[in-house]
């Protein structure tokens, strides 16, 4: 009988805990620059595309008798599986760059306004490095705890900021036209693609019909959180939203600063930041698993060092050009992200789902 490392409940919590996090830092201001009051529609479109991908993936997960690596091996043989996974390793490496860079900027420019330095951010890499050495069930356990933290952090921020929101600002809906909305979606595609994580967890959890419904609802809850954040953000800052680069810090600042409470809202921000560390580590985690599978490395620390080391090297080597790289990825690599995050995962449904005993990495 197949041993599942995760429970379907943990997949639900995984989506609630980690799906909204990285979309709350810089992405709102990026979309606001293009789509303005229709920014939430841009996000909604991308979320819907991602949701459709998720539906394909959980359909595939329902009958899977082995994990994702096994499914690939069943269908394409060992070499084929390795090639596909190597491409996904590149995808994960690129997917990490934008959120990593934005979190670095966020930490430097928001938390350390007095003496900004990259060295305050570098210890972050210890988190993915350590997480990558852990088994997949640890992700489930982390989600078991962090979903409440994410939810509480989010509610704190929204409650503190909603008083300053003017919801008329988002009206009329669709005023910016389809091209602006779609451009907003295209630019922000790098921040989405959470269904891919579920694809890599295929076969690790039991997925009955009722579990599928719960997973879909959890995705919907995570998506609703993102949309609410977008709407409140634009309603607070209206036409100057695109100037509020760090949406997470900016959204609730009026309440706390005006009332002389100190930045009380930082409690919520820190909660989200806490979940964010794990969320940001996820692409590196799956990257390390891919390396382990491809090279069948026995030593626990090697794959994490490679996966995380690549990001450290990129960050330190291209420190001066990170914004340009980020801009390049947003403007020119949208298709690449769509292919790997939305199109290819839909084909999971066609993979051979028979049981396979293979040497796990």
């Amino acid at each position, binding site marked *: 009988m197949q041993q599942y490392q995760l*429970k379907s*409940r*943990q997949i639900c*919590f995984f989506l609630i805990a980690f799906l909204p996090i990285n979309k709350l830092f810089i992405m709102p201001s990026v979309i606001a620059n293009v789509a303005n009051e229709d920014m939430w529609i841009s996000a909604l479109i991308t979320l819907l595309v991602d949701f459709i991908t998720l539906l394909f993936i959980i359909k595939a997960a329902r009958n899977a008798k082995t994990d994702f690596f096994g499914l690939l091996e069943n269908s394409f043989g060992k070499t084929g599986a390795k090639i596909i996974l190597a491409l996904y390793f590149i995808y994960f490496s690129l997917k990490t760059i934008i959120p990593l860079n934005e979190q670095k900027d966020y*930490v430097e420019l928001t*938390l*350390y*306004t*007095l*003496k900004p330095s990259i060295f*305050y*951010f570098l*210890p*972050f890499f*210890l*988190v993915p490095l*350590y*997480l990558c050495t*852990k*088994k997949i*069930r*640890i992700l*489930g*356990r*982390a989600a*078991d*705890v962090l979903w409440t933290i994410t939810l509480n952090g989010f509610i704190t921020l929204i409650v503190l900021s909603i008083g300053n929101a003017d919801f008329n600002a988002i009206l009329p809906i669709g005023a910016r036209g389809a091209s602006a909305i779609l451009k907003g979606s295209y630019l922000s595609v790098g921040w989405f693609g959470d269904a891919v994580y579920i694809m890599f967890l295929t076969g690790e959890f039991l997925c009955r019909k009722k579990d599928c419904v719960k997973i879909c609802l959890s995705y919907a809850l995570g998506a609703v959180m993102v949309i609410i954040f977008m709407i409140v953000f634009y309603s607070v800052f209206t036409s100057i939203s695109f100037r509020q680069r760090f949406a997470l810090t900016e959204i609730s600042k009026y309440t706390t600063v005006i009332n*002389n*409470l*100190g*930045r*009380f809202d*930082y409690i919520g921000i*820190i909660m989200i*930041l*806490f979940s964010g*560390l*794990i969320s940001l580590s996820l692409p590196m985690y799956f990257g390390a698993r891919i390396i382990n599978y491809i090279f069948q490395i026995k030593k626990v620390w090697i794959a994490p060092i490679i996966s995380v080391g690549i990001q450290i090297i990129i960050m330190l080597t291209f420190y001066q050009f990170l914004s340009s790289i980020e801009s390049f990825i947003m403007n020119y690599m949208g298709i690449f992200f769509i292919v790997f995050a939305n199109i290819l995962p839909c084909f999971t449904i066609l993979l051979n789902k028979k049981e396979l005993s293979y040497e796990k990495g």
Partner: protein
Amino acid sequence: MRMKLCDSLNENVKKLKQTLCSEDITFLPFNVGQLDAVLIFVNDLIDKDSVGELILRPAKKIDGYPNQDKIFNAFLSPEKKCVYTFDETVAEVLLGNAVIMCDKNAFSLSFGLKFFEKRAITEPPTSTVIKGPREGFVESLPVNISMMRRKLKSPDLIFENVTVGKYSSTPVALCYIKGIADEKLVKKLKKRIKEIEIDAVLDSSYLSKFLGEHRFSIFKQIGNTEKPDILAGKILEGRIAVFVDGSPIALTVPYLLIEDFQSASDYYNSSYSATIARYIRIFSVALALFLPAIFVAAELFHLQLIPLSFLLTIVNSIKGIPLSPSYEMFFTLLIFEILNEASVRMPKYVGMVVSIVGGLVLGETAVNAGIISAPTLMIIALSGICLYTVPELEQTFSILRLFFLIVAGSGGIYSLIISISILFIYLISFENYSTPLCAPFAPLIPSDMKDAVYKGFIDELDMRPSSIKSKNKRRIKIKGNS
């Protein structure tokens, strides 16, 4: 020495005397009927009245040359057994039993006539309660076992004995309830204890170091308690207890982190007050661990976190302080730890002096002299008190508090969040005897939440915790309910 006894008394005694050559061991010659015999015992471990009544007097009444059965039946002691090898005979003597050896018989007869001074049963200082039983375990294993038997009068309450220690030969007893405890775990634990090769086991804490599966962990891996009511509750949940002779602290396996946030009084008070008390403990620990670190981080890196009026108060109080906030907090914490250590070690009446000197003289004078600021002192005092709401974890959390303080002083709040994240990953992945340390939170076990996030009513706790492996899950059955 697995050598069998021979039927020559002189030869047996000669060999025994080579091993038991200490002067406190008596070899008393007497007769059993017409047979020569020797009674061997350790002088100060034996009840000499009982020796006279139960061994020497009946021995005089035997006639002729009795065989093994006749000798065995002639003595009426309730605790007697035949042993046939030298090492078993030596062990019996050293355990404090009286041993008879007769000529022409290749066995020795051991009598359990131990007698030594014991401490009275008192309330353990580490877990005092306002309501509820006040008795605590003592250093004597038989007394501790009897206390457990009095609590749980069931044939399913099993004690299994093992001896550990090359020189101490310390009796160790595993205690569990058959049908509730996981048998695989019992076997594993027993095997582990038997494999321990150590000179002496002077306290149960010696064993706990060997029973833990993570050698370098600063977190507790084995639970412990000094109270029979708590232990009875724990083994009824499926845990296994380990008693060590000479220690008033019983060990329990498996251990969950939440155990130390649950107090005995939670189960004797109303569920509401127990739930509130639990939250206070959790909040206090969070305060104790993070308050000094957050304060230093805020002062050094994130002034925007502090409300303006409070910021002005801090600015006024730190004016003229020669040390930077992190050094100031670090040294104050260090002084607190020194005072703490000194007050624990010192005799009680000197301890009072330490409290006065530490609290009033050192603290107040340091603030007045402008060496440390009042908020720093207040934070350390608050943190110190808060930590004692969960005394079992005080040592671990003291180390973590110091670590977090250093991290926050060096890298601010983000470094603090990173270190908490790493600790979080460590804790959720930590397992001992296949039981996750952070259950029922990670992994989430909803059914166990009624004795974790809140303290449910007694009838709600109808099932044993799923965090601990157990065959028999139901513990309360209310008539009329399924």
